[in-house]
């Protein structure tokens, strides 16, 4: 569904993405992990067309995204830090997005109820806490039943209850055969969600493996431990 080839981007002198090649398919749930500033968000923003790559190509559902915008109707995006117009209420933001998107897909408003946002629809965006803003972002991302879901640090600001609800939602969407791309630092949270792991470091993809491969290769049964083992091995190699 998403094919990234030779993606290269630099900001000023800083090379953020160095020739990334990745392929994601339908029904997969991919965790994009790596240290801060390794280019995860830039990669995601390039897929969304918010960052324009210096080189390389991205194809979504078989079409190049260069000078194209319609492909975004198949993407639900939840940003790391959702920024919304201050003086609009939650209801107004949702309403505006609905009108602008004018989607023919059936709307998926389950999360509004589950997060109990329908009780505070009149609240203005600037008065919301970080967690509530994240809930709004999540609602908007899932609203249009998009085939591809891109979630940037989705659970970072959510309380345990909301985070659990959210994970259930992701699992149910995965079963519908959607492609889900998650970045997160909370590796323990990803265990029962993801099917594949992409590990990035300094703008390079270190490995792209399925969970099964990862676990058998390292002999660990948790993602966090498996990653730790790989990193340790790497350090040992460097030192020796």
């Amino acid at each position, binding site marked *: 569904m998403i094919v990234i080839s030779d993606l290269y981007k630099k900001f000023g002198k800083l090379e953020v993405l160095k020739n990334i090649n990745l392929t994601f398919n339908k029904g997969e749930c991919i965790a994009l992990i790596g240290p801060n500033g390794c280019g995860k968000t830039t990669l995601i923003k390039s897929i969304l067309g918010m960052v*324009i790559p210096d080189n390389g190509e991205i194809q979504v559902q078989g079409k190049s995204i260069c000078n194209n915008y319609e492909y*975004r109707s198949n993407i639900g995006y939840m*940003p790391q830090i959702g920024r*919304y117009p201050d*003086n609009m209420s939650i209801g107004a933001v949702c309403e505006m997005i609905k009108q*602008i998107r004018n989607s023919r897909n059936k709307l998926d408003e389950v999360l509004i109820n589950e997060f109990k946002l329908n009780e505070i629809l009149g609240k203005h965006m600037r008065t919301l806490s970080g967690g509530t803003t994240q809930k709004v972002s999540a609602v908007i991302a899932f609203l249009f039943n998009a085939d591809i879901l891109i979630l940037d640090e989705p659970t970072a600001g959510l309380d345990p209850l909301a985070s659990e609800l959210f994970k259930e939602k992701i699992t149910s969407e995965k079963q519908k055969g959607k492609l889900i791309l998650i970045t997160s630092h909370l590796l323990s949270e990803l265990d029962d969600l993801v099917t594949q792991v992409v590990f990035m470091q300094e703008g390079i993809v270190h490995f792209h493996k399925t969970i099964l491969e990862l676990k058998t290769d390292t002999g660990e049964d948790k993602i966090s431990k498996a990653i730790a083992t790989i990193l340790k091995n790497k350090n040992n190699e460097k030192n020796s």
Partner: protein
Amino acid sequence: MKRIVKFIILDILKNKIILFYTVLLSILSWSVFSLEDNNTKGLLSLLNVVLLTVPLFAIVFSTIYLYNSAEFIELLLSQPIRRSKIWSSLFLGLTLSLLLAYFIGAGIPILIYSPPDVGFMMLIVGFFVSTVFVSLAFLASIITRDKAKGIGISILLWLFFTILFDGLILFMMFQLVEYPIEKMMVVFTAFNPVDLSRILILLHLDVSVMLGYTGAVFKDFFGTKMGLFFAFIVLLLWAIVPFYISLIKFKNKDL
């Protein structure tokens, strides 16, 4: 696109500052017309006030509005909307609401008090000046990410076009007084939308005598249909070109 423009216009009209601008313009124009017994004189005073306040307000308000809608732009960008559509909608929304404010504040008294042909000219010139400075605001705000710098640039642009430019022209005229520079002056005015607007109105008020020999040259040129056509084309270019440059930059901007 219509929906986005509608959202933006509604958002701007909810803003108290645009209301303040409308009230300010209407106080200015009603008081000028009721103080002067001669409507032409009234129009002349109003012209000077309008050519100072309208550009200042249009450029500063638009710049601040653009920086404040960074979140809105970001939100729209992740939706299936063309980038040029977002930027043009913002331009249309801002321009239309400022034109509306100008029309309600200054346009209505002008149409009531002043002679129809000059009044109509004044209305159109005001529309053009508003649009030109909104367009310049788009350019100023795309140049830098820093809000303070962006507003600084827009105030400098306003200062340049309303005050500094005239100073430069005056300086040049004194330096080159020995040479026949009258024809060149026509070309120079094209570089300043504010001056161009002022001359268009002055010529319609038959006070161009006050501009001396240069005034006669202006009259010869801008008085003709061709000259008028030229003036409006130049104003139109001033309204489109800065916005177009900003549009190209916006299309390639990383957000």
